[in-house]
């Protein structure tokens, strides 16, 4: 009787399909990944039960923390045009290089006078720079109001859309700061805006 020969099989597995899947997923994650914008001040967002996701584009966000207000708006073209108009308004000349830098700046909070100097800093120095927030308290020196107004104008002229305005505030922020901010918005007849919240965790119910 002939012995049954056990067929010796190769132990190597065909990795091609697995590799395909892995890279497909990788591509997906790379493309959907959004660079996380670091807030200049620690902001602890309050939790709430609302589940409306914030829209991805066409947003103007005011970040509030430690009594300072920071300004961020989506879209490089909007940022650049807003800077140009703000420069005209305040009589500050920005070079083309500064404008390009500003268009890549996701969030900032410096007064108009310091802005040119702030833009000249390189990445490392900018991180160390203590941003003082945009002045918004007095009616004579309300730069924040002008920033918002110019950004809205630019968005209408470039994309013909109305900017959505949202406030991202810190849990511990005292109400007067928020009240002033809301006052700034209401003076521009913005009565509808959004507050950024996180989803309430299951533990605290």
């Amino acid at each position, binding site marked *: 009787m002939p012995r049954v020969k056990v067929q010796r099989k190769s*132990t190597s597995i065909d990795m091609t399909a*697995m590799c395909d899947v892995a890279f497909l997923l990788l591509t997906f994650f790379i493309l*959907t990944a959004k660079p996380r914008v670091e807030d200049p001040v620690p902001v602890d967002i309050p939790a709430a039960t609302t589940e409306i996701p914030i829209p991805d584009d066409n947003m103007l966000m005011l970040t509030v923390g430690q009594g300072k207000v920071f300004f961020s708006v989506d879209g490089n073209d909007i940022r650049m045009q807003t800077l140009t108009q703000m420069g005209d308004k305040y009589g500050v000349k920005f070079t083309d290089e500064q404008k390009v830098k500003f268009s890549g700046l996701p969030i900032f909070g410096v007064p108009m006078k310091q802005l040119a100097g702030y833009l000249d800093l390189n990445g490392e120095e900018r991180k160390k720079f203590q941003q003082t927030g945009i002045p918004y308290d007095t009616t004579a020196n309300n730069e924040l109001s002008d920033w918002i107004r110019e950004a809205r104008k630019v968005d209408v002229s470039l994309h013909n859309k109305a900017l959505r305005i949202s406030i991202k505030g810190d849990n511990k922020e005292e109400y007067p700061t928020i009240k002033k901010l809301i006052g700034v918005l209401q003076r521009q007849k913005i009565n509808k805006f959004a*507050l950024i919240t996180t989803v309430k965790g299951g533990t605290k119910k």
Partner: protein
Amino acid sequence: MAELDTSGGGKHKGGKVRSKKASTRVDLTAMVDLAFLLITFFMLTTTLSKPKAMDLAMPDKEEHNDDQLAVAASRSMTLLLGANNKVEWFIGEPGKSQPTTDNYGKDGLRKTLIEKGKEIQQSTGKYMVVLIKPSDKSTYKNVVDTIDEMNITGVQSYAIVDILPAELELLKRDGNY
């Protein structure tokens, strides 16, 4: 790497020495390892819980006296947000009814809102109007919490209004300011 030599071996005795045909298969294991490593990295760095937005409409500051509705005092509930995460509420006009101090959360404000909402619905046949008046000592979290309670309890109409001096006195008297 993880491949055993399964060829019989030693079959080429004699014969011509052929140029060895190199296998066209590349070992993809390392590549897959790398790909999964990167996937893990990108999965973990993408923000998993995207922040949500809570829409808020403020009352118009402009005076439109012609289309303003007068709300009966019996239907209006006022919430005074004080310091130390305390809230005071009363129904009607300030001074005429005694405010009650309450906590935020499920057993405090939410219960009150649901109960009073029902009572007012029964007695007047109309929905309750809530006025939120944050004092200067309250935090942003308090305001968001309060609005959130409005959403949870389904209060149809609410507004954030500036606090009146008389109401500040109430908060001070009860030690919540």
